[in-house]
């Protein structure tokens, strides 16, 4: 278990990784990666039962990145927790890299399943969780989803399935940053009221501030303790969190910072108290 102070420092490094790697790639998705930094850092350092040096360890918990475009944050927490060298992050999106623009399980050990076409991760998490139930194994399945992603119909099929089979070993995390490529989620295609919807679908709903490390840690624990139904952590977040000119700007969904923007971003990340 890492301390809160240590988690804050890791979050700084993860944010720096995200802007460095997307800047080096000249493309990628910083906005929805930055909003999920706390969720992913707490998950990889304090929640997942895994062995970064042994990615195929059969008894591990599984993490499924349903919003595959947020792979920069995933690659960063993987590297920082020991799956591969941090230097490799700068190969993102380059020809021959293991770090594909959307994650591939065939190139990078530790990625459970390839993703990038939205709406599919929760179904997969359910299937894995079901296999664990069948074999009476204690493994848990975590799935990070975007809020815009909830517009995909398959997501709601999967929400029904998890509740129907009482998959209390499933924990969904919704990155509720309110923005998608074409703009404000509620303007493009409204998903509110989110908590009521998941509740109506028989899930245990936990609503938190997704940039508060203590709340994040407690939410994962509450999900773990909840029996008989799956849990969803709906975390209110800020797209582009931690970098002032990216915060709440939809345009930074899929755009890389240039050199000057990178320097400004790094100064902000390390120049002020962050992670909260």
């Amino acid at each position, binding site marked *: 278990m890492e301390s809160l102070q240590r988690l804050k420092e890791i979050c700084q490094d993860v944010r720096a990784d995200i802007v460095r790697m997307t800047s080096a790639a000249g493309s990628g998705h910083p906005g929805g990666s930055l909003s999920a930094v706390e969720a992913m850092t707490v998950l990889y350092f304090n929640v997942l039962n895994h062995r970064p040096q042994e990615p195929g360890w059969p008894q591990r918990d599984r993490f499924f990145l349903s919003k595959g475009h947020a792979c920069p944050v995933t690659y960063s927490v993987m590297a920082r927790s020991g799956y591969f060298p941090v230097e490799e992050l700068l190969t993102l999106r380059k020809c021959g890299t293991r770090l594909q623009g959307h994650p591939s399980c065939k190139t990078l050990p530790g990625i459970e*399943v390839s993703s990038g076409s939205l709406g599919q991760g929760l179904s997969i998490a359910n299937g894995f969780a079901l296999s664990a139930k069948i074999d009476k194994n204690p493994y848990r399945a975590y799935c990070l989803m975007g809020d815009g992603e909830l517009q995909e119909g398959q997501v709601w099929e999967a929400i029904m399935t998890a509740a129907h089979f009482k998959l209390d070993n499933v924990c969904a995390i919704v990155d509720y940053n309110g923005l998608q490529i074409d703009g404000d989620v509620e303007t493009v295609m409204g998903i509110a009221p989110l908590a009521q919807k998941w509740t109506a679908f028989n899930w245990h709903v936990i609503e938190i501030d997704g940039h508060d490390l203590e709340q994040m840690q407690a939410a994962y624990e509450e999900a773990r303790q909840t029996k008989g139904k799956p849990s969803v952590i709906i975390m209110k977040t800020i797209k582009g969190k931690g970098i002032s000119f990216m915060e709440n700007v939809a345009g930074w969904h899929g755009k890389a910072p240039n050199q000057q923007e990178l320097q400004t971003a790094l100064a902000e990340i390390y120049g002020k108290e962050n992670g909260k």
Partner: protein
Amino acid sequence: MSIMMLPTRDGYGYGLLELGAANPDVLVLDADLAKSTRSDWFAAKYPERFFDIGISEQDMIGTAAGLALGGKIPFATTYGVFVAGRAWDQIRTTVCYSDLNVKIAGAHGGISAGGDGATHQALEDIALMRVLPNMKVLVPCDAIEAKKATVAAGTVLGPCFLRFAREATPVFTAEGDFFEIGIANVLKPGMDATIIAAGPIVYEALLAHEQLAAEGISLRVINMHTIKPLDEAAVVAAAQETGAIVTAEEAQLYGGLGGAVAEVLARKCPTPVEMVGIEDSFLECGTPEELAVKYGLTAKDLVRAVKKVMARK
């Protein structure tokens, strides 16, 4: 001649029972069509290993993918139109790109769902599945071969698509006949022309063989139960040795077996080819027999195609 009639979906049902007994990791999923697809036979025997996912094909494929990641061998089952079409992206991105051990069974393939009309006739399933990297595509010709194909799919690693038919069709292979994924079965060793067929229409090819034999034409008949990976050696040998090829299938010619054979021959051994199948169209309702006659899928049509292709030699 009296011949036993059974639908190939029955072979799927028997195959699942055999797999279920042999391997506790074999699971079956269905999308509210368990009675039609015969997956209910497995459900009755192994209820703890059967999961009805409801009318949600995309979620069924994703769930199957997760089960495969957990070490299970899931058979995701429903009508071919719905699974191959509606869940294509899930099959592509999650199952095939990740190369997961998911088996997909598409029932009511071809014209066998005749009365239901065009919405339910899977004619594009072969093309849709064949184009996917890592995917194997199996189209058994009768119930016995369907059982073998099911068992083989459950034994081999990686994604497989199996196509079954609704209507009872002649059972003309034997339990002891050789079956291996990717290896064509030469049923008749003729030298004047070859029919390469997949699915129940293989029986029509055998009838065509009889008719042509009476006219002194020596027809080779190849049962191409595996459309991918295609047995290219058998295709090229048939082209070299008989010099004229007819393909036969209950599917759209574009992208189907006809397309697959033509791709091989164009590159390796250019040879006259005629194709029997569905010519770029949606069909209509009718009994499978009526549709076979109307859309040219009978032994008579195959005989005509053989003569046509021989004239081009």
